């Protein structure tokens, strides 16, 4: 039970990472390789606000969100928008990787090299469920991820802005012709992805400890979760993230430590080979949905 909850909690973070990756992919067709570093930036900002300035948790989170929203906007302006037509070149791979390296090194210089203890929600209190010691923080990780996913899905389906995002994702040129400001939509998606990154960062930091290398092992799993669920698919992000988290938790119980990640990524490769569009691209899940419904 404990491993399952931990797997779901970790999976929630992978889901949030995959969601943010999908937000950007769906509107630009690119993968933001700096995303893991932005998560780290959010966590470190939150840590500094709490530990150094003694600010309340929620205010620290809001400041962290402001910082990561700003950083993602800067990344978009400098690393993506300047490249022009993204469908015709792959320079964004280098620019976003470069942004990631710059962020990591700046964080190292500003925040230092030593891992820091980040406070759990509810002061790390645990409850006993069916004999397992479950931390309220882990329960909140799952609930917060579901909440964010629900809000995002509602926005996408029920609001004008959501329809604009879907239009840009489906047919960017046509959306532009219809009067939708594609650049504003894309910029907004980068900003939203930055906000989600901060939330993911402060939730995972108590477990990984806050340091400039905190996302080195989990960063790639966000991409894996996005691929498993279907890149650009918000529902898929959650399916992929939670699936990956649970697989890791189960596999970790039975195999030596060194093979755990190998098996997780093997499963990812198998999914991609047989379902290149992710799990949700399987016929079972399609049931007449149009391409425009993919996000």
């Amino acid at each position, binding site marked *: 039970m*404990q491993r399952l909850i931990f797997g779901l909690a970790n999976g929630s973070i992978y889901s949030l990472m995959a969601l943010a990756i999908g937000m950007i992919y769906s509107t630009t067709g690119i993968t933001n390789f700096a995303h893991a570093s932005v998560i780290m930036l959010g966590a470190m900002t939150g840590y*500094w606000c709490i530990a150094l300035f003694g600010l309340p948790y929620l205010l620290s989170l809001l400041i962290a969100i402001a910082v990561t929203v700003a950083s993602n906007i800067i990344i978009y302006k400098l690393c993506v928008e300047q490249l022009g037509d993204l469908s015709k070149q792959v320079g964004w791979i280098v620019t976003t990787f470069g942004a990631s390296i710059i962020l990591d090194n700046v964080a*190292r210089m500003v925040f230092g090299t*030593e*891992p820091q203890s980040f406070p759990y929600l509810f002061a790390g209190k645990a409850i006993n469920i069916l004999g397992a*010691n479950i931390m309220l923080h882990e329960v909140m990780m799952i609930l917060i991820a579901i909440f964010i996913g629900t809000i995002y899905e509602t926005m996408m389906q029920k609001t004008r802005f959501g329809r604009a995002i879907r239009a840009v994702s489906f047919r960017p040129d046509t959306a532009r012709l219809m009067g939708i400001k594609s650049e504003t939509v894309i910029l907004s998606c980068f900003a939203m992805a930055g906000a989600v990154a901060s939330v993911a960062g402060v939730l995972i930091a108590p477990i990984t400890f806050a340091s400039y290398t905190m996302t080195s092992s989990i960063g790639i799993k966000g991409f894996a979760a996005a691929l498993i669920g279907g890149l650009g698919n918000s529902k898929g992000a959650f399916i992929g993230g939670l699936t990956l988290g649970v697989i890791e938790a189960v596999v970790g119980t039975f195999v030596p*430590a060194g093979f755990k990640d190998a098996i997780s990524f093997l499963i990812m490769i198998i999914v991609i080979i047989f379902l290149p569009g992710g799990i949700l691209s399987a016929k079972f899940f399609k049931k007449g949905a149009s391409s425009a419904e993919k996000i």
Partner: protein
Amino acid sequence: MNKKKATRFLAMTVILSMLLSGCGAGGKASDSSEPIKIGVLGALSGGSAILGKQQQQGVDLAVKEINAAGGILGRQIELSYRDDEADPTKCKTAAEELVDKIGVDFIVGPTNSTPASATIPYLQENKIINVMCIASSDSIIDAQKFPYAFRIMLPNGLQAQALVMNAKERGYQKIALVGDNSALGVDGTAAMEKWCNEYGIVPIANISYKAEDADMTPVAQSLKDAGADCALFWTLGADGAKIVKAIERLGYTDSMDIYGYTGMVMPNFRELAGPGASRCSSLSIREWSVEPGGALNGRYLDLYNKIISEYGEYGVGKRDTNPSTVASGYDSVMLLKWAIEKAGSTDSDAVKAVIEKSGAEYVPFFGSSYKFSAEDHDGYLASDAVPVAIGEMMNGDLYIRS
């Protein structure tokens, strides 16, 4: 005829040039106006960056002092740092640059054992003395294979012996071994297993995990399932802290004591590990730990005060380095200074001979005395290591003996 003379003259010039360049081969420039170049290899970024930072602070402090006092043999020290990111390939490349391009006379570091393994053979070929003050693998010090490599840190074998010896003396019945699956962790666990055999102990469990993994619950669960009353950790600080936290979550903290090698020691271990840190001990050099209620003294206290003066008090947003590790970096340079002055030159063979034959005469700032010899380039004995409680620190950064 003129053409013959010209050819003869050209040939003489070429031969003379070759002879003159050959004069410099195998020896160091001894021009007293030239600085003494010391290269420093270590991880300044990545997961091991704290090690490189500690080494750097110690080296910088020593060089600043030495240069202010006139240098070594009237020559200033010139430092060249290279960040190897704890990567063996990068370390070797950096070493080649330091030796071939910069022309360093000596090297301090590397900080990590795996990069050191990749780099030391190259340094030996070039007769570059390197003093290691952090890397602890047994395989990187061998007076026969690597005659120019020296170390002033407790090696893994000695630490493993000290940990097992301590566990046996304290009467634990179910001793588990824990280490990560890197070369460091595998070597350390193997060393502990070897000493368990020597002392007639059968480990109740031998648990491996992936370094820097976020989820250490399987490790904690394995310890609990085995019913261990003592766990010997060969882990780095952050990973060790995660495991201790996971043990606390399983409600097993009070059932087991943990002893870890020096790599587990970090100033904020208690903050990271939580209340379970009170059950954790590690090893420290005797001179850089204090008795409960005691204090540092003599030259160690002086150096500690210098570290505070130069880099500030320890704390969040302030200095985050361990003063004993900073002291090891400091002592690496001071040892070289002493040996160069005693040898009267920077010649590698002369300096090496001084360290081997007279190393016990050197008054260290890290240990109490070094026992170097022609057969042994490790400075310590097992008795130089004392168990220290990681959960309690004096001034937040000095270890208290347990």
